[in-house]
């Protein structure tokens, strides 16, 4: 954000050194944080509208033009609600959890390059930073579940943690691929490397892109990965005892995190702010980043509106027996081919065409092989269950199907 306040001070016509460093940092932090915290107000509206269209509804349309003020109405309502503290709760973790949840998500925004020279903090370990900070949300979930002293909440929290830590593995393995291509963990460096190449890493490693996207969707716990709040089994998971604004903060962090997947995926695989003329007109960079982010966000909404929820055992098997081996295989293949086909001297699209075909093709091939295994396995499973139902003359809901057994 160095550039922001230098620009700002030039614009306002005050000397660069007239404001103490800490104040400048604080202003930059508040600007960045506020922008990203207000984004969900808009994206919640977008999401409700899009989900409504998927389900052949109209969505919010009463508050303001096109229902645009719906989120503001919701916020006002939440402010007027009573905060209820369960009588036997463990008070400090209970109160602390929503705060930590939001902090763990909002801190991610520090390493997202918004446009050339505009970034909160260009850390040399940026890619690792957002994974590490994101892992703090695990703690927030456990604190919420434990603090509530509610059996559903605790069970939900532990399931959530098991899910979060499991899906972190394919996430990091697929994250290693762009880091390896760029030779740096800095988010600015990864964007710059793609801008210099004139094409994006998604063409070289489409499988990594998809694995990264899926495991991120699982990390935020939205459908089809929303077991943490599986209403039919756990009522609302770890959030059950929360009301009013503390609950709102959990919602906020979920929507913010969902929105942040967009910029993260865009920076790592879609070139970030890279696009025509972005280096000359930096403002275009933000526009490109927002367009790419919303495209990724739309993929998430699409999945959310289309797919039913996983069962807990399916969720775990999908991760450990599909995504983890696939992401490891993908890393091994991508790094091997990167070594085998070094970048041609010319660079550019035409010279790199064979490289695209080989690297992108083998990445997709790996994915296809994995999916074929997955398909066979699931057909086998369904046939097995069907046989079981036939043989034992079970009523429809076996323990195997409801997924509640065994907790």
């Amino acid at each position, binding site marked *: *954000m160095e550039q922001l306040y230098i620009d700002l001070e030039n614009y306002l016509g005050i000397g660069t050194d007239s404001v103490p460093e800490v104040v400048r*940092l*604080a202003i*930059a*932090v508040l600007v*960045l*944080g506020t922008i990203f915290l207000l984004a969900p107000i808009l994206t919640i509206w977008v999401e409700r509208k899009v989900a409504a269209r998927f389900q052949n509804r109209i969505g919010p349309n009463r508050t303001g033009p096109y229902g645009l003020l719906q989120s503001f109405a919701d916020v006002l309502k*939440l*402010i007027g609600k*009573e*905060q209820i503290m*369960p*009588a*036997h709760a463990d008070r400090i973790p209970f109160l602390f959890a929503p*705060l930590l949840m*939001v*902090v763990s998500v*909002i*801190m991610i925004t*520090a390493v997202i390059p918004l446009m050339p020279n505009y970034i909160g*903090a260009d*850390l*040399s370990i940026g890619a*690792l*930073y957002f994974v590490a900070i994101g892992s703090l949300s695990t703690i927030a979930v456990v604190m919420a579940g434990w603090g*509530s002293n*509610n*059996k*559903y909440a*605790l069970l939900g929290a*532990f399931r959530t*943690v*098991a899910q979060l*830590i499991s899906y*972190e*593995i394919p996430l*990091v393995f697929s994250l*290693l691929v762009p*880091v*390896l291509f760029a*030779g*740096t*963990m800095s988010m600015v460096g990864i964007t710059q490397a793609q801008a210099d190449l004139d094409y994006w890493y998604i063409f070289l490693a489409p499988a990594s892109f998809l694995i990264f996207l899926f495991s991120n969707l699982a990390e935020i716990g939205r459908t089809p990965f929303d077991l943490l709040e599986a209403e039919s089994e756990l*009522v609302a998971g770890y959030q059950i*005892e929360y009301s*009013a*604004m503390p609950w*709102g*903060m959990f919602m906020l962090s979920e929507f913010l995190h969902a929105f942040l997947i967009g910029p993260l995926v865009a920076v790592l695989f879609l070139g970030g702010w890279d696009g025509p003329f972005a280096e000359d007109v930096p403002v275009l960079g933000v526009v490109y980043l927002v367009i790419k982010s919303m495209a990724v966000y739309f993929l998430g909404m699409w999945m959310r509106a289309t797919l039913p929820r996983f069962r807990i055992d399916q969720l*775990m*098997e999908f991760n*450990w027996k599909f995504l983890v081996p696939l992401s*490891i295989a993908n*890393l*091994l293949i991508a*790094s*091997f081919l*990167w*070594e085998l086909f070094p970048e041609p001297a010319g660079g550019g699209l035409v010279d790199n065409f064979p490289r695209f075909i080989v690297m992108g093709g083998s990445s997709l091939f790996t994915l296809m092989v994995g999916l074929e295994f997955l398909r066979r396995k699931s057909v086998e499973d369904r046939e097995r269950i069907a046989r079981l139902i036939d043989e034992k003359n079970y009523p429809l809901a076996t323990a195997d199907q409801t997924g509640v057994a*065994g907790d």
Partner: protein
Amino acid sequence: MELNQWAFVGVFFVLAWAFPLAPIVLNRLVAPSRPNKIKTDIYECGVETVGDAWGQMKVQYYLYAIIFLVFDIEMVFLFPWAVAYGAIGMSAYLAGAVFILLLLEGLLYAWRKGALEWT
């Protein structure tokens, strides 16, 4: 310099708490607060609560956590490997591949032993 960048993160970490705290405090000030025994009771679908929730969980969670821990430590080694990768060449690939395949063996063992099943 790196440390200057971290100063931003440090200030961010201090100020970030204000973002969630402000609406919660505002909510506290504006909203009514009239707790009663029924309202502050634990909600377990209307069934009266028996005992604390803080009971024993099953061993499966521990298994997932330990496998995750092993992979997490693997990441510690793989990130520097990935960063240095482009500059070294095939020997880096071999070293990394052996490292990863050895761990894959552990995953296969867990798979075979049924440690990955959610039972």
